[in-house]
């Protein structure tokens, strides 16, 4: 039984290098207008505030909310990258987080070398590494390119490699950001089947998306994030009805029905 419990977590980013670093831009953009001060009177951005929910096997949760609502930060916290300032996250089960396409890809290394690193990170043995390389090569259709440095790839090829790698390892808990669903039409046809196997295999799916079609197709529960808090949590139709404008909602429902 997989389980993921988020108990009253808050995350705030300290702004140490405000003048010079791009941190300011990224964080401010991500969390518009939520500046605070910590105990030592340093400027912080409050990305998440008192967020609680619990997920169990069978839950397929979609996170919606405007840009900067804290969706990506929440995914990163659930993936164990950011440890919350207060509150706690309990996870039972193997987690895979698919957060961005070039995630951990080293541009100077070849495709095969990148696959090997990912496999070693998952604790694979030599035979499994070979198998993974063959699997990704077959899916991504990169054959001879896998022996060339990733920097020589086109951006489409990088997405194919990243996607092939990300979906090659089957997790119990799958955290997914939107990028996986972006790609050209011909690739998406090929990718859809592979992604569906992974999604259906996972006991818990957490998906962050702006695409209501995908949310309606894959999710049985929707959490609406707004300025770092949970605004609503419930069945997709209910939450989407409150979130979307009436005509957009009608359109989305018609799309899902059709």
């Amino acid at each position, binding site marked *: 039984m997989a389980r993921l419990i988020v108990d009253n977590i808050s995350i705030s980013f300290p702004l140490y290098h405000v003048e010079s670093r791009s941190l300011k831009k990224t964080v401010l953009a991500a969390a518009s207008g939520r500046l605070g001060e910590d105990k030592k009177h340093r400027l912080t951005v409050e990305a998440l505030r008192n967020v609680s929910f619990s997920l169990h096997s069978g839950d397929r949760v979609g996170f919606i909310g405007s840009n900067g609502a804290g969706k990506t930060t929440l995914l990163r916290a659930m*993936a164990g990258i950011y440890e919350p300032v207060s509150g706690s996250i309990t996870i039972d089960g193997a987690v895979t987080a698919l957060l961005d396409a070039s995630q951990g890809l*080293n541009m100077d290394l070849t495709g095969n070398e990148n696959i090997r690193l990912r496999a070693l990170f998952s*604790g694979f043995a030599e035979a499994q590494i070979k198998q993974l390389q063959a699997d990704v090569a077959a899916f991504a259709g990169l054959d001879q390119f896998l022996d060339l440095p990733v920097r020589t790839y086109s951006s489409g090829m990088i997405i194919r490699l990243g996607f092939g790698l990300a979906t090659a390892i089957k997790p119990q808990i799958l955290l997914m950001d939107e990028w996986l669903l972006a790609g050209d039409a011909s690739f998406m046809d090929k990718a859809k089947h592979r992604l569906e196997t992974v999604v259906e295999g996972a006991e818990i799916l957490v998906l962050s998306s702006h695409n209501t079609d995908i949310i309606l197709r894959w999710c049985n529960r929707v959490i609406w994030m707004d300025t770092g808090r949970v605004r609503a949590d419930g069945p997709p139709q209910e939450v989407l009805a409150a979130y979307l404008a009436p005509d957009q909602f009608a359109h989305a429902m018609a799309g899902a029905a059709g």
Partner: protein
Amino acid sequence: MALAAADISETVRLLPLVWTLSLFDIKLRYRGSLLGPFWLTLSTAIMVGSIGFLYSRLFHQQISNYLPFLTISLVLWSFISTITAESTVCFTQAQGLIHGTRMPHSLHAARVVMRNILVLSHNLVVILAVFVLFHTTPTLAAFTVLPACMLWVADAFAVGLLLGVFGARFRDIPPIIGSVMQIAFYLTPIMWNPVMLEHRGLAKALIELNPFFSLLEIMRGPLMGLPIESHTWLMALGYSAALILITGLVFTRARPRIPYWI
């Protein structure tokens, strides 16, 4: 504390990954070059050769004694100074990995250590060549370099974590460490043999309290066939214990904050 220990033990479990990452680091550095990583060997050989001949004249030393001494010292020192320099940026440079996947943070410090051990192993060839050239035969005492090596690896890993944390939090640390190490290079008997200063009181104190000297000496002494002084070992162990203790405290406190800092 438990979480910090778990972080480190996970790094130990992922040692094959650390090894491959380090290997790729070296390969990348020399990808497309004719000699590849043997540029490391060649450039060390050229440096040791040219400095050795000049300084043996300047210091009125016998080259057959001075050159083996200088070779060992320079090779070991370049290990120390590269480790300190690269440690300060070990977390900031791994930003993509740290924000992309959940990995033990200490893995990035281990990677710096492993990479530099690989570099060091290329330079051992030069030491070996110099020894053969000048018929220096190591004595049985040379076996005490084994415990010394273990101490060095532990210290290097601790330095990696400690400087990595400070370098991630304070961006002024890398240049500060750079200039401190520059000064340490001249104050420590690396180019010059401590025997040259034996009769001068003040300089002797400088040597005896210098942590770099005691650490260098536990490696260099046995290789040069000098008797091991328990005093030097005690100093080395004392400084290492202090370093590891401080690192433990700092890493326990700072570990959860690293992703926020970089």
